[in-house]
């Protein structure tokens, strides 16, 4: 029984990080109807930034969060101008292909530079032990940071001028333009924030598990499931979706062979799409 409880708690902790990883994906979708397929690469960029900064400069892994956040924002703005700007308002396939192309380039270059060797960042943080089960310190801290960042995003979107403008653009871009909102700049900022969130989630995941240049694909895939559970274009819902996915993984594993976990996850993905086409926690389209 304690084992099941431990799995559930563990699932929730990791689920919060999954949620953060999906938040950037769903934010960009919510604002401009673009599925950013560089998301996995940006998560890996966060992991690599953590590895290089923590190992090269010898600083605490958690002190890499601000530079990853800021760096991620500027990378996102650059990504917008390179791969997304001309695709906004066009059929979704166009932006899908352009971001996929950028993803292939990024992964290709990174593989050429670093190969697909393993990277690991040692984090010495005491965990919490209940009976025979231990919840590692980095998992607890990463979950707390993910929840904090999700809260800050909510505050940003609902209580700041820029955040409100982003929501306005998401609601009705033409109307936002009519009232003088610089929509293009707002779209660039949205991608900047989305990529910054991907980078930070990568950085936090890097404190939990070893990773390779190719690790982003798995998290991007989970990001899609979380997005469906949490509601398309609803970044805060993504956090709930992440928790739901983590809970599911934690609940399923003790009872069925572990190889079934992925099958069950995707079965749920299809079921939710059928029952709730906009996602379980879907807000009104474009309301963010």
């Amino acid at each position, binding site marked *: 029984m304690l*084992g099941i409880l431990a799995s559930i708690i563990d699932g929730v902790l990791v689920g919060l990080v999954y949620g953060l990883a999906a938040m950037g994906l769903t934010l960009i979708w919510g604002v401009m109807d673009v599925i950013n397929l560089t998301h996995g690469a940006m998560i890996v960029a966060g992991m690599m930034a953590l590895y290089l900064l923590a190992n090269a400069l010898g600083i605490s892994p958690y002190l890499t969060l601000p530079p990853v956040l800021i760096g991620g924002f500027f990378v996102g703005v650059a990504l917008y101008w390179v791969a997304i700007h001309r695709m906004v308002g066009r059929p979704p396939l166009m932006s899908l292909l352009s971001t996929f192309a950028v993803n292939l380039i990024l992964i290709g270059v990174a593989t050429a530079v670093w190969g697909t060797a393993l990277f690991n960042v040692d984090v010495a943080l005491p965990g919490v032990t209940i009976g025979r089960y231990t919840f590692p310190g980095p998992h607890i801290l990463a979950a707390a940071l993910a929840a904090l960042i999700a809260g800050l995003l909510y505050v940003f979107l609902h209580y700041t001028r820029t955040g409100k403008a982003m929501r306005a653009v998401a609601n009705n871009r033409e109307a936002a333009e009519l009232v003088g909102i610089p929509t293009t700049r707002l779209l660039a900022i949205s991608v900047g924030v989305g990529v910054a969130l991907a980078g930070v989630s990568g950085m936090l995941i890097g404190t939990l598990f*070893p990773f390779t240049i190719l690790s982003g694909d798995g998290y991007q895939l989970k990001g899609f499931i979380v997005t469906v559970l949490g509601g398309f274009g609803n970044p805060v819902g993504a956090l709930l979706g992440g928790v739901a996915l983590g809970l599911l993984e*934690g609940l399923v594993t003790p009872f069925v062979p572990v190889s079934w976990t992925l099958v069950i996850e995707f079965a749920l993905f299809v079921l939710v799409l059928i029952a709730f086409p906009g996602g379980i926690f879907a807000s009104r389209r474009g309301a963010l």
Partner: protein
Amino acid sequence: MKRLSTKRLCLFAAAATLFAAPAFAEDTITIGFTDSQTGPLNVDSLGQSRGYEFWRDEVNAKGGIKAGGKSYMVKFVSYDDQSVGGRVQQLYTRLINQDHAQFLFSSYSSGLTAPAAVISEQYGKIMIDSGGAEEKPFELGNKYLFMVITSATHYMSGAIAALKEKNPHAKIAMVYSDDPFSKDVMKAAKEQAEAAGLQVVMDESYAPSTTDFGPIVNKIISSNADAFMGGGHYSDGATLARQMYDQKANMKWVSILVAPADDKFGELGPAAMGVTVPSQWEAQVSYKPQFGPTTAEFAKAFQDKFNARADYHAASGYTDGMILQHAIEQAGSIDQEKVTAALNSTDVTTFFGHIKFMTDPGHHGLQEAHEMVLAQWQKVNGKPGRQVVWPTAAKSADLIYPLSASQ
């Protein structure tokens, strides 16, 4: 008369050139293979490819392969298979038909070697395999496929024997990747463990794309196991080791496939300590080779050339070339049937160990003489490093058992 002689001379020269051209082409042997320059198998495949290249450069520096009064320089043609099984058949067909490869080396991993072997057999081309340990392709009646490494079913034999010696009542959790190689290894390991009187309390596979092993580690703890065997390839094995350490799984024994055989595994720091890995070759084990370099010579020359320590993938890749070279020299020809016959009668010891192929139709080409060792991550001169701990006759350090409480 003089003009006629010049004309004749020109004709002779032209004829000589025409006849000389094929003779020149025959003086080069083209060997084809695919490697995983990209994709998840990149790390292990790189080691194997370096082994191939190292052998080729050494052979060519010594004037090539000598057979039938000729010297054959070795030329490679290779393509990136992107770690994708679906690409290898197309690429091996191209290697044979367009690049005219006379001999083939395997890709890395069982999942890629098995489909490649279908093509090599179809065209009757010899393929020397150091990348795929799965036995199934050798049970299909293939005639031209030869494996220089120990096959999957023997991977965990040493670990089970060593564990039995330390704890005859060990309770083992077997958790492994859902791929042909890992399943082959662990199916045999389970049978061997049970035959040895050890208890297997958990036997499950996970999807190769699994990123978080937290719930799985909790399940291992709940199973009351005190020993762990499993893993698969690279990142999954490393993540398992790290999460078992972080979640204090308290295993007294941990054996993980493949990942700990790479030096980068040491980056896990304390999570790597005590982990054992079945290894096809380690630099500490010394055989008396009948030909080719000694272990020390190979390890040093490899280090000098690539500025990296040779791992077992590099050593087995080099052995592919060395065994093919030996067979061609024994056959005195590059004719496929004659070289196949020479490979069938190969029974030699190299720095990589004893090499002999099974010849009965049900297992043709399978390795029967090579033996694996068990290596364990320990502190070597204050730094993490692998020591050979089993068999005891070949050990370079004592086996640490039980592991510290956190593992």
